[in-house]
């Protein structure tokens, strides 16, 4: 998986087609779990660029709607937009597609917990003036 763009509160990633990612050996369609993984990651990166927290983020929940099977042998792109950050939680929506965002393979919404315990204090952005 490669990160293509990350700016504002958005991120764009690509996962190239690979035979080891196949979920249905008869059709060659990628496993749904690959899309799950890609969207989870892309959403996490969008939260990261929006909040400047790196690593101190944990997925709370992730909902994915599968619109159509991915086309075999084509790369998959994922776009995520972190549209709201509160004190503890970040909300993100994302989609996976081949070439056209208006014809998605899957869409998702996710919520992330910010400043998770294992990282608390270690990774938070410096306050103004510090």
């Amino acid at each position, binding site marked *: 998986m490669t990160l293509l763009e990350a700016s504002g509160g958005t991120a764009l990633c690509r996962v190239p087609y690979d035979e080891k990612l196949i979920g249905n050996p008869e059709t060659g369609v990628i496993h*749904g*779990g690959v899309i799950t993984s890609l969207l989870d990651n892309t959403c996490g990166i969008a939260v990261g660029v929006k909040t400047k927290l790196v690593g101190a983020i944990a997925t709370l929940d*992730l909902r*994915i709607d599968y619109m159509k099977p991915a086309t075999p042998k084509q790369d998959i792109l994922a776009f995520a937009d972190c549209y709201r950050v509160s004190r503890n939680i970040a909300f993100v929506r994302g989609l996976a597609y081949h070439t056209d965002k208006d014809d998605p393979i899957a869409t998702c919404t996710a919520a992330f917990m910010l400043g998770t315990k294992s990282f608390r204090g270690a990774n938070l952005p410096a306050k103004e003036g510090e």
Partner: protein
Amino acid sequence: MQILKAAAAEGRKVDLQALVDAIPYCRFLGIRVDRKGTELTTILTFSPHLIGNPVLPALHGGVIGAFLETTAIIQTAFEIGGASLPKPVDINIDYLRSGRPVDTFGRAVITKQGRRVVNVHAEAWQDEHTKPIAALRGHFLVASDEAES
């Protein structure tokens, strides 16, 4: 899928390990199935390539999601016994605890079986079944009509 078709034609339950081994992404993750009668447990053997956060370290959330999704698919394929793999329509994953770098187990229950769609609930745990690390709820299309696939 051929494995499912053959089992359905002979009126027997499918060999689940053979089914999982026929799916490249499941092989990549290293998923195994333990069947005791009608009780299925899926096993995600720990391996370093499943790590998502090397600092903690913790299993990748996407890997846990994929494991739960596979658990739900295997349970559905086992119970319904159609000729093709159940297809995900939507899934909702709740991440409850961080996945430690140890083996993970999964079980799924079909909450509601419809003619075309099933509702499935799956849970993943590590040391204690009562302390799940993640849970999935989802709908899967089980229409056996090959023309629809």
